[in-house]
């Protein structure tokens, strides 16, 4: 039996064997649905774009139901209900029910703070298959400070318990950075104690909000090495009890990550306003027009034919040093959003790659930031961010 792993936000895999013709792109197995950007938490590394979609722009219940039906019809097998905070939408139970009715496997990616036991039970009855809860740390002080939300950590622990009581599988998602990496061993134990099936140890990826907060979040090289050692030890020790997925920050690597499994190859997500995007940060690349599910085009057409998906597909768009690089079909030049954010041109080599002319400068700067004094956060919100006060409130 072969396993196709679908990491949550990186390379969503296609089941089909890779075809020799590089232009054939099968419909992804799983699609990320960011049904709202509203969220009570204000995490400084939020993966949502800096310019958030306001609630007035969100797709309606009927529009989302139509999307779900269309996804099932074209061969998508799983959907991740995400956000923002997906439980901020009053119609979530109805959407999960509809997704189940059309045969989709449903994952809920949540901060958990808005859930009640009754609501979770309704979601389970509606056919929800799996719950993923984010944690910001191991104890209230740091966790609630990172999330910018008092009482959040305690609520998360409670919801995680309800999840297992309702016999739903649980994934603990822990986003790691300089200010919480010291808690990693305890986070692993917390996941075991919560009877989670999976733990995601996800180091912050520095786009959007996280890039604005890089000086407060960037780990040191020593911290990162320790983190990797902890994960490797825990994986071995907890085999059969807890599966651990590990996402490393690419700043200190010599080779860039195969972001999204390659642009437009294995993944798309749908934004609250209905834009079909090659990755959840894609809107940060200015000058690209993204088609909406509200347009006259089908989702399959947008995936296969739209300008935004085809712009960085394959290798034809590449410049040097990617163009003649032997790794060009292995990592596809890294992350387009990171290339754009750090170099101003998404077609440049991702500076995470040692072959990028900017690699040295940018990553020396990150290293300096990691050793620096800055620890204040710029909290994520609809007002463009709010700087944490001096005394950490």
């Amino acid at each position: 039996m072969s396993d196709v792993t679908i990491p949550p936000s990186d390379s969503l895999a296609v089941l089909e064997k890779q075809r020799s013709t590089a232009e054939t792109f099968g419909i992804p197995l799983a699609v990320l649905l960011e049904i709202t950007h509203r969220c009570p938490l204000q995490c400084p590394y939020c993966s949502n774009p800096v310019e958030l979609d306001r609630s007035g722009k969100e797709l309606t219940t009927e529009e989302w139901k139509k999307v779900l039906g269309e996804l099932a019809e074209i061969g998508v097998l799983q959907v991740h209900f995400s956000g923002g905070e997906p439980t901020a939408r009053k119609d979530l139970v109805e959407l999960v029910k509809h997704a189940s009715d059309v045969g989709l496997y449903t994952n809920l990616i949540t901060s958990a703070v808005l859930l009640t036991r009754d609501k979770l039970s309704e979601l389970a009855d509606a056919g929800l298959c799996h719950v993923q809860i984010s944690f910001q740390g191991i104890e209230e002080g740091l966790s609630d400070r990172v999330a910018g939300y008092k009482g959040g950590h305690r609520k998360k622990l409670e919801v995680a318990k309800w999840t297992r009581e309702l016999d739903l599988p649980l994934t603990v998602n822990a986003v790691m950075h300089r200010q919480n990496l010291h808690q990693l061993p305890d986070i692993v134990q917390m996941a075991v104690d919560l009877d989670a099936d999976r733990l995601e140890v996800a180091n912050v990826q520095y786009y959007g909000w996280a890039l604005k907060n890089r000086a407060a979040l960037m780990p040191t090289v020593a911290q990162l090495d320790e983190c990797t050692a902890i994960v490797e030890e825990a994986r071995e020790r907890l085999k059969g009890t807890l599966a651990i997925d590990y996402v490393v920050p690419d700043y200190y690597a010599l080779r860039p990550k195969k972001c999204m499994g390659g642009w437009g190859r294995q993944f798309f997500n749908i934004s609250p306003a209905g834009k079909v995007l090659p990755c959840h940060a894609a809107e940060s690349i200015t000058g690209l027009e993204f088609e909406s599910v509200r347009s006259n085009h089908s989702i399959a057409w947008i995936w296969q034919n739209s300008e935004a998906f085809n712009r960085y597909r394959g290798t034809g768009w590449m410049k040097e040093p990617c163009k003649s690089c032997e790794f060009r079909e292995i990592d596809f030049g890294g992350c387009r959003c990171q290339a754009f954010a750090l170099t101003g041109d998404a077609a440049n080599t991702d500076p995470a790659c040692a072959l990028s002319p900017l690699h040295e400068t940018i990553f020396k700067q990150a290293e300096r930031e990691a050793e620096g004094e800055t620890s204040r956060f710029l909290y994520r919100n609809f007002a463009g961010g709010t700087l944490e006060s001096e005394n950490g409130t």
Partner: protein
Amino acid sequence: MAGPRNISVSEASRPVLPRHAKLKYDETRKVWVILAPERVLAPDEIAVEVLQLCDGKRSVGDVSDQLAAKYAAPRDAILADVIVMLQDLADKGFLTEIREKTS
């Protein structure tokens, strides 16, 4: 369909897929799949046939009887293969079993 995890598969067990692992025929790709959290497994033909018989009522022994009769093959060999296949699935967390109720 609540059931225990970390099970040990034997001839007497009555396995069944837990609610979070769904066996489904993928019309688009023309293959059977098992959908699980963040994963899609591609079972081979034999695995699909075994899993379709694992309804929480039949024991592993019953399933092996049925397959031995259908393929006119030695039951012992089939039983051994079925246990290995199901245990692998159980170890990944995608199989549970029905146990006798005490009430």
